[in-house]
């Protein structure tokens, strides 16, 4: 069963690969409260209360301002948010309040 799942998932990801500008992208999503938001040269560095990894938002991302505002707001009011991050670079792609 596990082998079958891997084969099917392989097909799924190969189709994803073809569809997405030939650039594979694996994402993870989770809900958590923001612990800290700090700005570095090229990225925003974000940590969460439950999730241990250090996440980033690239300043070059066109949605940088929007994502930053949502993260800071969520931290201020201590509200949990849904985060979609690109794996394994741990780059935040989307934030849903």
């Amino acid at each position, binding site marked *: 069963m596990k082998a079958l799942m891997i084969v099917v998932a392989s097909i*799924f990801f190969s189709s994803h690969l073809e569809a997405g500008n030939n650039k*594979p992208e694996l994402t993870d999503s989770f809900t958590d409260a923001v612990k800290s938001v700090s700005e570095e040269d090229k990225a925003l560095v974000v940590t969460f209360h439950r999730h241990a*990894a250090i996440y980033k938002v690239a300043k070059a991302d066109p949605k940088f301002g929007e994502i930053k505002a949502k993260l800071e707001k969520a931290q201020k009011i201590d509200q949990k948010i849904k985060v979609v991050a690109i794996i394994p670079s741990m780059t935040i792609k989307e934030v849903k309040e």
Partner: protein
Amino acid sequence: MMKLIILAIFVSLGLEANELLVPNIKKIHEAVKKTGTSPCATCDGQTAQTERTADLDSPHNRKTIKLSVLSPARAQEVFNLLRDDEDNSFNYTIEGCFARAHRMAQLMDEMGIISGKAIVDGKFYMVSKYGEYGWSFHMASVVLVPDKNNKLIPTVFDPALFNHPVSFEEWKKRLMKDPKSELYSDYFTSRFHYGPDTRHIDLSEYNEDELEEAKKTNRDNRRMGEMLTMFETAPKKGRK
């Protein structure tokens, strides 16, 4: 359309797999369910292994944690069982240490071993085959193991970083290996603590919601690890 069909197959297989992947957690023995109770104190013979316990002080959060004392050989044996647990997620260690440690605690409960959690807060940078990544905290299971002089050493089970049990000091040294890493605080909690935030609170049992969340996190992360492996091994497509 093709993608939708494949997705449907994948989802249905995923649902089936969820049922198959239900962790093999048996009923936790009453004797080990409560903090500080030796598994043999009220043992009715069902606990496979009985271990003696001793106290471990945690100055940072002002707690004293009662833990099982294991011989070095027994510690390695237990470590191997935890590392090889297919319901844990040691194939994806970038995220989810809290869920892995919770699963290890439950497995040790089944073995009649009272474990705790070793936790560090700070910035810890690791390098993997996927590149550099960081942790704002890290946690793993801890028990007590006597050294050559019979002194009890807090010993960490962390298959994400080591292939054998290591002293708490060696564990921290590994986490601080990268010059950019910074240690803010280190401490211990009982096995019932799911994350660092509750370190100042006394807990005497698991939170059912957190047990479920840990189970889901481990399942999702295990799949994430499998997918990353597929990404690595997938044949390169002709790129324009």
